[in-house]
């Protein structure tokens, strides 16, 4: 089971992140995690939200370039070696990580880690088979 990340192109101008967050707020979308990957001239906003498809529609209506990207979110045990254990399983399955970032949510002691693979479906199957707890966010 994999989940979706909302990815949004942001031009290198002040106020663009605020604009996205305002739009999502008005659309009743709750942001669970946020991350920006930046290059010299632009950024890509990566959000985990409760309603990815609604969020995407709201952004497209406002002329943003955006997409729902399949990602795999997994629980990382809160102890030394916790992340290493996950990465070992990924390596064993021969999966290549495009990028990753972590976040935590309330009422869980464990951290959550988001992984971007080329093939999210196969990756999530491989991780589940290795006994790793896959998380789904929202619908």
């Amino acid at each position: 089971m994999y989940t979706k990340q909302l990815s949004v192109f942001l031009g290198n101008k002040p106020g663009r992140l605020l604009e996205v967050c305002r739009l999502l707020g008005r659309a009743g979308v709750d942001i669970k995690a946020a991350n920006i990957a930046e290059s010299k001239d632009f950024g890509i906003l990566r959000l985990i939200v409760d309603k990815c498809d609604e969020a995407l529609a709201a952004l497209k209506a406002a002329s943003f370039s955006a997409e729902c990207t399949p990602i795999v979110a997994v629980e990382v045990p809160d102890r030394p070696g916790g992340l290493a254990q996950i990465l070992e399983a990924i390596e064993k399955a021969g999966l290549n990580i495009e990028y990753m970032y972590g976040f935590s949510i309330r009422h869980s002691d464990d951290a959550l880690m988001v992984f971007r693979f080329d093939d999210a479906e196969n990756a999530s199957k491989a991780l589940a088979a290795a006994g790793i707890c896959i998380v789904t966010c929202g619908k």
Partner: protein
Amino acid sequence: MIWKPEFECADPADIRTLAGKRLRSLVEYVCANNPIYRKKLADAGVTPEKINSIADIVRLPVTVKDDLRDTYPFGLFCVPQKDVAEIHVSSGTTGNYTVVGYTKADLALWSDAVARSLAASGANPGDRLQVAYGYGLFTGGLGLHYGGLEMGLSVLPMSSGQTQRQLKLMQDFNCRVLACTPSYALHMAEEAKELGFDFSQTKWKIGVFGAEPWSNAMRQEIQDKWGLKAYDIYGLSEISGPGVANECEYQDGLHIWWDVFYPEVLNPDTFEPVPEGEPGVLAITTLTKQAIPLIRYVTRDVVTLNYAKCRCGRTCPRIGRVTGRTDDMIIVRGINVFPSQIEHALLKIEGTQPYYQLIVDRKAGGMDELEVLVEVEQSFFSDKISKLEALAATIRQKLHEALLVHVKVTLVEPKTIERSTGKSKRVIDRRKM
């Protein structure tokens, strides 16, 4: 000095008589050697017999840049390829390049025209000439090179760039004459200052600057910074390259070598001649070229022509400074850029839309920079930085191939490029000239 006084200082009536004879021969020549010209002249109802003096030039149809583009690559050539000694290429308005060819006689003609220009700028045989125009398909470098050789100068073929080396060799080799774009002359001054260069050691006394528009204010700045005298040289590759016209020591208009490059000033819409002294678009007829002679070629440069005899003794008319263009061409680092080329190149890259904006800016150091803003359409958006950067690199490379000049590509959000009356405002020129 005056390189060819027999032409440059002749009685204008004699030049007009000569030009009339040359025009008749030219029309006979193109009719005999090129089917496209033959048809064009026949369609206009002109036969060589109808050309009896230079006044009859108005009977001939004009030639425009699209005529070159539409016949790419060799359609307007009038000699077999084996007689084409050299080829140069500049950018065209869309897709195709503008190709010009030279026979050996054409190269001699070009060399002579540039020699006249260098002489008008005050160069003397034996002077060392530092050519800091780019060498290659661009006519700047080789044009000045050939002219220098023709005049008996000692030529240092530096090409542009590497300011530190330019400065060292200028000093060590005692280069009296510098030829480059005016913006590069300013850029070198800026770099020299940063390098702690002692300007009292400057050897250049004469600068021959062209291939891009520049103002008298810029001339003053270059002259003050380098302590040299700066001359404007005019040309375009379609006619031959640099050296179609050049200023003399009075810096009061550019003398055009009208015994070989016959000028007219036309109304830009009707192509009818404007009254003498009025501004209009410059059209030039190459009276003696062989490989690709052009009849009434519309340069799109807006100028005035002054036929009064100059204090220097030359009688050839003077082009006032180019005051503008009748198309949207811009000149960046000496290279012609048409916005339509960018649109054309973008359309060929999968995933991109032809929405762009062009920003031209002149950096503090004097060099022009071309930035192209491209909207990131939904169709080529990716959540991976690497993919978007690869796309920007592809656009950069394709634009470089099309424009022959380096551009900075900046990806921006969709619909952020200003659209006025449905069309984008394509070009923002921030240069102060």
